[in-house]
């Protein structure tokens, strides 16, 4: 087999001559359940180990095995870690999607594929590299049963060769992946990778422009998914009661947390746990337990996704009105209803902010990175206890389930804030207390924990009307006073949540506002706008809701402000519309994407340009 056979018609020759270094994306198209995760992770890691900023995104179906899956690795010397729409380097392993995968490539892309698929016949403007995987796997894996697995590692070798990835990095990544105990497995896979590398080395003439070169941009960094980061945040926030019901994409948050808790939160002397984790029978029970635990003084949490949020509505309203702390992680996926459970979105913003009937408002955090998952998990517990109310941490499938490069997390510098809790001694001094009285003018009353050894400690908690001594009341004045205090409490939070991250550009007439994972696309888009269109922009990223006063300031400093939403109904913009002055709303424009994939910079850029009329 010669390379001529491989790409009968050459892509434009100028492309091949202009090497593209550390700035491209690799997509591996497989079938889920086929065991490609190790191969993909190792590939991503090896690039990372070469000091090149990298990100990985897994696009998987909502079933267990047999349906198309795509894993995309992006190497970016500029440090962009958002999704890149265009695939530069395709590894086509899935016969079912291979045709469409190839047809949707931009001209000049490269394709490694399973030889029998004969994809080279499809287009003449791509660089094709056929690999006879079945032939290669047999000699390196004598046990036939395991070949299906090991086969994937071959493409790592092929790609390493074609992209100039150092094979020693592949080896290192493999060892890391399998750990010391699974050395045999690592060896087997290493053999496969080598076979791939050798095959490519002896067979292919490199024609595509893509390759990697060592950099020094990843030293000291870690690779972690957002759910694990959230789990670590909860661990260091001192969570004590965790309740959950499995649902994609939130399950791994709790499953990882369980694993860490078992390692680090069992008393070495007694062997006893400083935490309780309950897999509840459904989300009504999981939030109910979290509320019960929060009421009784635990740092409690649950994690869920859209359908769970809907089921929690009644209890969240109770938490709001009876003023009970609890932290709820909403790892957002595409709704409505079951929607696309394995696709990402920011579609629950309005639901969560206003969850439950009657007048309710809930604070939310918007982490954009694993590091923020870690720090905001802690912020969320502190806010929940300080303000005695349910608090949402809004992450999404992209952040939660994909692997992200990150700086190592900082050890918390401030002590845990348990908020206003009266001890028996306090009560002895005070003689008593009024649970819902606004003593400090911040709307937040003092509470006691059940079990407090004092006859004046007890109070009665209810979701029905009550006066400031927690007594049952149907009085108009008691009701209104209480609701006004709750409104004040919400206002007070504005100054207690972390302020937004602002990047002002003095020459910018337009601003961008985004939360959470939209951040990565926006950052890159700002460069595109500057470099390609000479448009300067400012950028504000609120870290939490209720919004801080700086939001208004930011808006007023720009002619037009694009509010980026990963949902159809412009929900982030909606939250602003609900509270801003009309003259500020007038400056806002909506920029929406709701296709279920992680937002990419090009989509942002194109839409800004379209609306700017350029």
């Amino acid at each position, binding site marked *: 087999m010669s390379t001529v056979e491989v790409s009968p018609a050459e892509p434009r020759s100028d492309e091949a001559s202009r090497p593209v270094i550390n700035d491209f994306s690799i997509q591996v198209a497989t079938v889920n359940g086929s065991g490609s995760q190790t191969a993909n992770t190792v590939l991503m890691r090896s690039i990372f180990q070469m000091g090149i900023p990298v990100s990985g995104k897994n696009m998987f179906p909502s079933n267990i095995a047999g349906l198309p899956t795509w894993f995309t690795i992006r190497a970016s010397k500029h440090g962009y870690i958002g999704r890149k729409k265009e695939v530069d380097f395709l590894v086509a392993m899935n016969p079912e999607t291979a045709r469409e995968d190839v047809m949707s490539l931009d001209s000049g892309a490269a394709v490694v594929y399973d030889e029998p698929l004969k994809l080279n016949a499809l287009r003449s403007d791509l660089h094709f590299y056929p690999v006879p995987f079945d032939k290669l796997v047999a000699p390196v894996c004598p046990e036939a049963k395991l070949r299906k697995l090991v086969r994937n590692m071959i493409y790592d070798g092929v790609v390493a060769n074609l992209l100039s990835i150092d094979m020693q990095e592949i080896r290192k990544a493999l060892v890391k992946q399998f750990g010391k105990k699974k050395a045999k497995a690592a060896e087997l896979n290493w053999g496969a990778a080598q076979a791939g590398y050798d095959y490519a080395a002896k067979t292919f003439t490199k024609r595509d422009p893509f390759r990697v070169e060592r950099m020094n941009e990843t030293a000291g960094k870690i690779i972690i998914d957002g759910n694990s980061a959230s789990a670590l945040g909860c661990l260091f926030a001192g969570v004590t009661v965790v309740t959950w019901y499995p649902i994609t994409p939130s399950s791994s948050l709790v499953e990882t947390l369980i694993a860490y808790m078992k390692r680090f939160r069992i008393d070495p002397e007694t062997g006893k746990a400083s935490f309780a984790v309950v897999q509840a029978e459904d989300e009504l*029970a999981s939030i109910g337990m979290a509320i*019960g635990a929060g009421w009784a003084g635990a740092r409690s949490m649950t994690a869920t996704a859209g359908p769970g949020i809907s089921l929690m509505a009644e209890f969240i309203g109770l938490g709001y009105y009876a003023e009970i702390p609890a932290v709820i992680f909403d790892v957002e996926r595409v709704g409505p209803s079951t929607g696309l459970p394995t696709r990402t979105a920011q579609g629950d913003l309005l639901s969560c902010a206003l969850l439950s009937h009657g007048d309710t408002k809930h604070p939310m955090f918007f982490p954009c990175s694993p590091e923020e998952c870690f720090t905001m998990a802690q912020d969320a517990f502190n806010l929940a206890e300080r303000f005695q109310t349910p608090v949402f941490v809004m992450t999404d499938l992209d952040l939660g389930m994909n692997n992200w490069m990150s700086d190592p997390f900082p050890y918390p510098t401030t002590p845990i804030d348990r908020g206003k809790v009266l001890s028996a001694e306090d009560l002895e001094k005070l003689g008593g207390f009024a649970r819902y009285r606004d003593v400090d003018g911040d709307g937040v009353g003092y509470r006691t924990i059940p079990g407090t050894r004092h006859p004046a400690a007890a109070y009665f908690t209810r979701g029905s009307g009550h006066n400031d001594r927690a007594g049952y009341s149907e009085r108009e004045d008691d009701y209104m006073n209480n609701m006004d205090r709750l409104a004040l409490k919400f206002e007070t939070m504005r100054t207690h949540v972390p302020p937004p991250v602002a990047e002002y550009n003095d020459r910018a007439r337009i601003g961008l506002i985004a939360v959470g994972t939209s951040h990565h696309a926006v950052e890159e888009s700002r460069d595109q706008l500057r470099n390609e269109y000479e448009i300067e922009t400012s950028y504000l990223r609120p870290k939490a809701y209720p919004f801080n006063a700086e939001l208004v300031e930011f808006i007023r400093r720009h002619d037009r402000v694009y509010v980026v939403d990963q949902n159809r109904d412009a929900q982030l913009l909606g939250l602003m519309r609900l509270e801003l002055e009309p003259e500020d709303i007038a400056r806002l424009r909506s920029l929406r994407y709701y296709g279920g994939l992680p937002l990419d910079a090009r989509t942002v850029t194109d839409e800004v340009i379209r609306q700017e009329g350029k």
Partner: protein
Amino acid sequence: MSTTVTPPPKKVNRIGLEILNYKGLKTTLCAGCGHNAISERIVECFYELGIEPYHVAKFSGIGCSSKSPAYFLGQSHGFNAVHGRMPAVASGAILANHHILGLGVTGDGDTASIGIGQFMHQVRRNVPMIYVIEDNGVYGLTKGQFSATADLGSKLKTGVLNDLPPFDCCALALKWGATFVARSFSGDKKQLQALLKAAIVHKGLSVIDVVSPCVTFNDHEGSTKSYSYMKDHEEPLHEVDFVPSYEDITVEIPEGEVREVVLHDGSRLRIRKLDRDYDPTQKISALAALEEAEAKGEVLTGVLYVAPEKPTFIELLNLMDEPLATLPESKVRPSKEVLDLVMEELR
């Protein structure tokens, strides 16, 4: 039975508290409502056993029954949650602090209609607490619709007939994991006290289903086991919002015997008290006894089942002795070394 001895009247109990320390607010339930009698028994029991009120936390859902925790143990924390979800809230609180003596009081609508799922899963987990069902077969607070424990064939004032079989909360509880299951009647002071005390002492989940007549809406006209006392007097009493005021019903039934109790509306309850030699450690025979009583139209009272040794949920979770709620930061936030280690693993 050591748990049923009533100490001679005195002003304070063994920990020096008066009965007043165990009372709650004045009830706002109907006069004569069975739930009020249960509240009184609870007050007496905790007083007599000399349990510190701060040691107890009360839980309920929504309903007349669920209002009642406001009417006892005023010095204990209380949580009147949402309809049918008391078990979750109580479970969470007990996880947070397993030294608390959890006392759940809800209704049959709360437990067997909207809440049957949480009830069964609570039972399955053997969460250590007392779960009292104030069972009247109707939704009192929403004015008298049938609940899922209503007798087959009973009829509402509106003429609606219940043609569905009742859930028997005791059968459910004992079949799926509760480790103390009893039934009583709100009017049987002595038995109810004894059962409550036994439940307080039991280490796992104790379910007590207390037949507690709704004097206002449980007029079982046309039911298989009752007749309407009001029938003759009906005409002048055609008053939609009138709630007559009744005296509490009290009754005492010897062990192993059956008594017919006439309720305020004239309906009759056939109550059979378990024999002294009944063995409450056998699941299957307990189920059969319940099934048999149901067939005979009898209400079987007493301790139906007990499994004192079965591990509680707290034991299964291997919780440390200190309440999770009040662990110091040093016990719940791992050290910087741990974070460094984890970070290293992720590099």
